């Protein structure tokens, strides 16, 4: 067991060792300073020339958001049709069928918004072509969208007063060429040499030792698995994601995939500090996020190592911890670490089945997604955190009787209104969505859908409620993991989560960028004795308290009905 805990510590330590220099590098790239990857410049200017973009043109925040929404809309339409007609397109050696319109609607949205909720199974639901030109392509660009938005936000605080926030396309292309593509290549190669398939061959068939005929799904998976983690996307090549032995062959690749998904979110925080020349603020933010992570991680790992009390009653040995839905090569400790990491940042890939984890673990997973900013997704994590920051600035301003200010800009009614609306949005979507689902489940159980509502749930009682709550929470957080027992490929879930995904993605990007744009345009007030300092420990604690109070108030009743109720009944 000690080796298992050591594994977690080593993985996290290595994450920091990579993420901190990466943050410094990113700050330089986006500030346009000289870096060693400048040899890629011709490639970038080639891309700009081809698409007729002038990367030097400065945009204000509204133009940025217009560019972002336009290109995302184009991807949505494009992906939707490719998925529906995938059976008629080439590179489909397994002869998989096209998607139904509602499934395609859900899938394309979920990949555009960096969520990768998968209501299909990778082996039978998509083709090699769509895995590339839809899934993998969207993984790159959705992550780059998040990073570019975060850079716009950085830009607003770099100079004293400014409306010029750089060029969206410039940030976007650089996120891909300077960051995602090179790193993906490294990760993909590590995976390939540990056994993840890369070739385009179709399904294989063999006769097993006992004489059974076995079909084996495979395909060029390594490249996609790399970006799925780096870009905090999380959509797997195979149905069971990174629990699949070909997707995640051994403990080493498991750690590599774990590191890959956390480095960019951490690096973005570090880059923020350097970029706006306030390193202390970044370290405080990083500290709060890290404490938040450990507060979720420690109870998760301990509840998984503790094993299932119901199995303990049967008298078997659980020295290895709870093993349902887990793989022996990882063990429960690092699986617990994975489930924490994948929910606090918005990856949503899994190496164990969350539906089968212990009830308390389920609580921490849900809470991680509800907060969604302890590191958070690529780029969007820090944007989510910024909303909490503004609320904290506002509340502490009221408490001490000073004008709320952030980095020398007055925070006024308009900004606070936006922040409050975004904070209210998540609970609204999650709770209303779950409520509608519960209503349909109880009152329209026999509705004529692909999966009848009465058959949705794979588990009875409180756990069944958790399955629905988890699905909506995961959609809102753009996370993409699930309590996969839920029968979610039908028109109800496809449409409901589709809309939750869209709203849960774009408003929380537009909100913070708008606040930053508005603040950045305001007159700069030099710091004085009357300024509320945001880069102190006290303020860090304040933000932390705001995060906890807001989330506890919003979600405690729902959590109490689901995983907590299950936990207490199991204790009996």
């Amino acid at each position, binding site marked *: 067991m000690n*080796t298992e805990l050591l594994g977690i510590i080593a993985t996290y330590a290595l994450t920091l060792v990579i993420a901190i220099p990466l943050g410094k590098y990113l700050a330089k790239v986006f500030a346009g300073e000289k870096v060693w990857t400048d040899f890629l410049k011709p490639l970038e200017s080639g891309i700009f020339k081809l698409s007729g973009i002038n990367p030097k043109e400065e945009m204000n925040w509204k133009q940025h958001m217009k560019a972002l929404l336009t290109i995302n809309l184009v991807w949505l339409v494009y992906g939707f049709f490719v998925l529906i007609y995938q059976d008629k397109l080439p590179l489909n050696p397994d002869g998989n069928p096209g998607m139904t319109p509602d499934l395609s609607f859900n899938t394309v949205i979920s990949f555009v918004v960096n969520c990768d909720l998968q209501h299909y199974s990778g082996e039978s639901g998509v083709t090699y072509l769509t895995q590339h030109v839809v899934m993998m392509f969207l993984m790159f660009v959705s992550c780059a969208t998040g990073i570019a938005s975060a850079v716009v936000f950085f830009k607003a605080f770099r100079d004293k007063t400014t409306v010029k926030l750089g060029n969206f396309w410039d940030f976007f292309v650089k996120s891909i060429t300077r960051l995602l593509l090179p790193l993906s290549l490294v990760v993909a190669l590590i995976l390939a040499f540990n056994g993840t398939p890369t070739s385009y061959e179709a399904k294989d068939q063999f006769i097993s030792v006992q004489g059974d005929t076995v079909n084996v799904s495979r395909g060029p998976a390594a490249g996609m698995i790399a970006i799925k983690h780096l870009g905090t996307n999380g959509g797997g090549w*195979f149905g069971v994601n990174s629990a699949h032995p070909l997707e995640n062959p051994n*403990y080493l690749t498991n750690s590599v995939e774990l590191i890959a998904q956390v480095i960019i979110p951490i690096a973005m925080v570090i880059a923020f500090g350097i970029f706006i020349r306030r390193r202390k603020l970044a370290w405080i933010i990083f500290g709060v996020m890290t404490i938040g992570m450990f507060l979720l991680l420690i109870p998760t790992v301990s509840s998984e190592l503790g094993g299932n009390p119901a199995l303990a009653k049967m008298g078997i040995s659980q020295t290895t911890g709870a093993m349902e839905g887990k793989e022996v090569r990882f063990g429960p400790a690092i699986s617990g670490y994975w489930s924490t990491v994948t929910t606090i940042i918005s990856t949503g890939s899994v190496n164990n089945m969350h539906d089968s984890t212990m009830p308390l673990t389920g609580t921490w997973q849900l809470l991680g997604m509800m907060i969604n900013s302890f590191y958070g997704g690529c780029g969007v994590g820090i944007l989510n955190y910024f909303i909490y920051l503004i609320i904290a600035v506002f509340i502490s301003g009221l408490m001490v009787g000073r004008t709320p200010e952030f980095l020398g800009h007055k925070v006024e009614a308009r900004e606070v209104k936006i922040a409050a609306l975004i904070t209210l949005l998540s609970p609204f979507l999650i709770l209303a969505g779950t409520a509608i689902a519960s209503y349909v489940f109880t009152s329209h159980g026999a509705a004529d859908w692909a999966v009848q509502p009465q058959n949705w749930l794979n588990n009875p009682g409180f756990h069944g409620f958790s399955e629905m709550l988890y699905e909506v929470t995961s959609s809102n957080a753009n996370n993409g993991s699930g309590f996969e027992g839920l029968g979610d490929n039908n028109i109800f879930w496809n449409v409901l989560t589709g809309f939750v995904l869209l709203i849960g993605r774009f408003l929380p990007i537009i909100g913070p960028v708008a606040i930053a744009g508005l603040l950045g345009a305001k007159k700069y007030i030099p710091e004085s004795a009357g300024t509320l300092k945001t880069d102190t420990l006290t303020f860090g604690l304040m933000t932390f308290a705001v995060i906890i109070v807001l989330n506890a108030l919003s979600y405690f009743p729902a959590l109490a009905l689901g995983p907590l109720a299950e936990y207490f009944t199991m204790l009996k």
Partner: protein
Amino acid sequence: MVLLCVIYPLIVAFAGGFSKGNGGGEKITKNGKVVGYALLGQSFTQAEYFWGRPSAVGYNAAGSAGSNKGPSNPDYLQQVSDRIDTLLKYNPSLKKADIPADMVTASGSGLDPNISEQGAIIQIKRIAAYRKLDEKTVAELVVKNTQGPLFGLFGPSSVNVLKLNLALDELKK
């Protein structure tokens, strides 16, 4: 888009061609015939082989899935209790308290190629009896096929069931 969807995957595919199994997954052969993939578990139900973990999909390598059973689900608990009974039936000398959880719970992928060391140890007696082998020989084989933690430091140790069983077949000759 060309860069991301064509050039990047092709580089990976090209490089992957140099790995074990040439990018198609590492295969294991016996008497010149492919009998499985090193990384994919397969179903072993006969008493003379080491069994793998229960699988929610019967080790279907074209449709991986876990059971997704919640920890308090009564059907699931019944299933586990049945698995315990089966194990006890086939391994009469086995004590309940020695059964490790991984042998009675379904894996996440349904394709878990490994079992825990303890999971193999509890089956030694049965295998030795069926194959008329010395218990010590079988035990040595288990030790030989146990993969320790990564670099001896990180993570759990595990036993690859397919490799162990093939080694067992070799022994017979």
